[in-house]
């Protein structure tokens, strides 16, 4: 069984009409997959093994002045130790082979607090990362390459619509193969601000407000209740920051730093990156209440 890797090529392969009158297209590049009786089961297990929890909160929305994009920066990891069998044979001397039993732990730990989840595709387009970090980073960079090639070939920038369509088509061709990508493409083109949600199932939605990740329900709550189209850039960035903060507060898989980016007619600009721990005390300042000792002194005096 062969896996079609033609999606990884940047340039379409030359279709040569050889002596064959029927004009057969040459087979696309591919690699072998292991033989297995239950291929569907194998595929499901493989996907489960690599499936990260999409533990994150990202959001983006369009308002009067442009697009606001915000995200947290925590990367969480769940995993398990698998069976491994190794046998070492050195000529006459033999080393014992040993066997580790399969142990499945699903443990949850914070892999990093400083992941860049807002990816700069080009100076006027941003992509957000949710799902597999490697998948998102690679395919966003690949999209950046395609956007630049489009610019060079057509002497004009690609639209946000076009860029999101390119990404969605690629992800669709890898559907069912275990990619985990839930991204938003935000940018400014000739038609104004653009925002699309694209995921690894091949879905692509145009919209004005999106939030993706495990913390998205919390972020939606704050975002939807505070949203107005006619906001200034400061109001919008404050709304975005607050929404991320609330999501990181309640969702264990989100945290770290709340980054806020703004995309306007001249391109994107990073507005702020605040540690959510500090934001907590900013929104809930500690009022210096009377200490126990002070209370006792007051009581004695009274």
């Amino acid at each position, binding site marked *: 069984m062969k896996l079609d890797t033609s999606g990884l090529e940047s340039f379409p392969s030359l279709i040569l009409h050889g002596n064959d009158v029927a004009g057969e297209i040459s087979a696309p590049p591919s690699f072998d997959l292991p033989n297995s009786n239950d291929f569907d089961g194998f595929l499901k297990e493989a996907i489960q093994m690599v499936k990260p929890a999409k533990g994150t909160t990202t959001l983006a929305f369009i308002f009067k002045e442009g697009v606001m994009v915000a995200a947290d920066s925590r990367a969480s990891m769940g995993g398990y130790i698998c069976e491994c069998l190794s046998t070492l044979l050195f000529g006459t001397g033999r080393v014992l082979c040993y066997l580790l039993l399969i142990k499945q732990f699903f443990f949850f730990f914070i892999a990093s607090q400083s992941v860049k989840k807002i990816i700069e595709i080009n100076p006027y387009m941003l992509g957000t990362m949710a799902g597999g970090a490697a998948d998102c980073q690679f395919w966003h960079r690949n999209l950046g390459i395609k956007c630049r090639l489009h610019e060079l070939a057509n*002497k004009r920038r690609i639209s946000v619509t076009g860029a999101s*369509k390119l990404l969605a088509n690629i992800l669709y061709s890898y559907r069912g193969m275990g990619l985990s990508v839930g991204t938003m493409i935000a940018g400014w083109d000739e038609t104004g601000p653009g925002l699309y949600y694209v995921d690894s199932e091949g879905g692509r939605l145009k919209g004005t407000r999106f939030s993706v990740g495990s913390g998205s329900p919390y972020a939606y709550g704050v975002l939807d209740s505070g949203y107005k189209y006619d906001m200034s850039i400061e109001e919008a960035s404050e709304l975005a920051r607050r929404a991320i903060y609330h999501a990181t507060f309640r969702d264990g898989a989100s945290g770290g730093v709340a980054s806020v980016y703004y995309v306007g007619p001249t391109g994107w600009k990073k507005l702020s990156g605040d540690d959510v721990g500090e934001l907590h005390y900013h929104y809930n300042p500690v009022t210096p209440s009377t200490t126990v000792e002070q209370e006792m002194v007051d009581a004695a005096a009274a």
Partner: protein
Amino acid sequence: MARYDRAITVFSPDGHLFQVEYALEAVRKGNAAVGVRGTDNVVLGVEKKSTAKLQDSRSVRKIVNLDNHIALACAGLKADARVLINRARVECQSHRLTVEDPCTVEYITRYIAGLQQKYTQSGGVRPFGLSTLIVGFDPYTGSPSLYQTDPSGTFSAWKANATGRNSNSIREFLEKNFKETAGQETVKLAIRALLEVVESGGKNIEVAVMTKEDGLRQLEEAEIDAIVAEIEAEKAAAEAAKKAPPKDT
């Protein structure tokens, strides 16, 4: 040089690809086609060999649509043209599907030229024996464009150009008489250029006008006859004016 003209992929010692040049010969034997770019429209005119009495003239349209805003006329092997036009039409829709936007005239010209070039560098195939004139409006800037491709796969933009039979004389005429025109004036210029090499009459010329609002419009025979009559009248008046002054002195 006979040894170097069999396989397309073989260069001759002095740097020629003979098959490509023979393809250009085929183009030179094809019917004349002219294209003129105006400020608000683009006009294509093609010589029509008189249709046989029993032939349905509507089935031999020589100016075709590639998309709502792009049209093409060609000179050379008509069967090759059909294949190229089909591929170009599919590419226009494919572009709309992947980028959710109509393609520019330059994009589709580049595609057609690329296709023509591919067939000059493959084994066992021959080049397409046609040169095309591609006209249209840029969907983003709204400006009209005229491009020409040829069997070697080169393309370039033109203000006015001709290809096919006697294209040199038509081009000379255009170089002498080209002005930035709009609307009906552009149509007249195109027809005047074509009349240099074609017997006058509406039934020997096929003309189509591409505008931004209405897309491609084929002119009726009667319309063409009317314009031809206008042109003849202007010519006659010019002749008379030339003859008159010497008598006055």
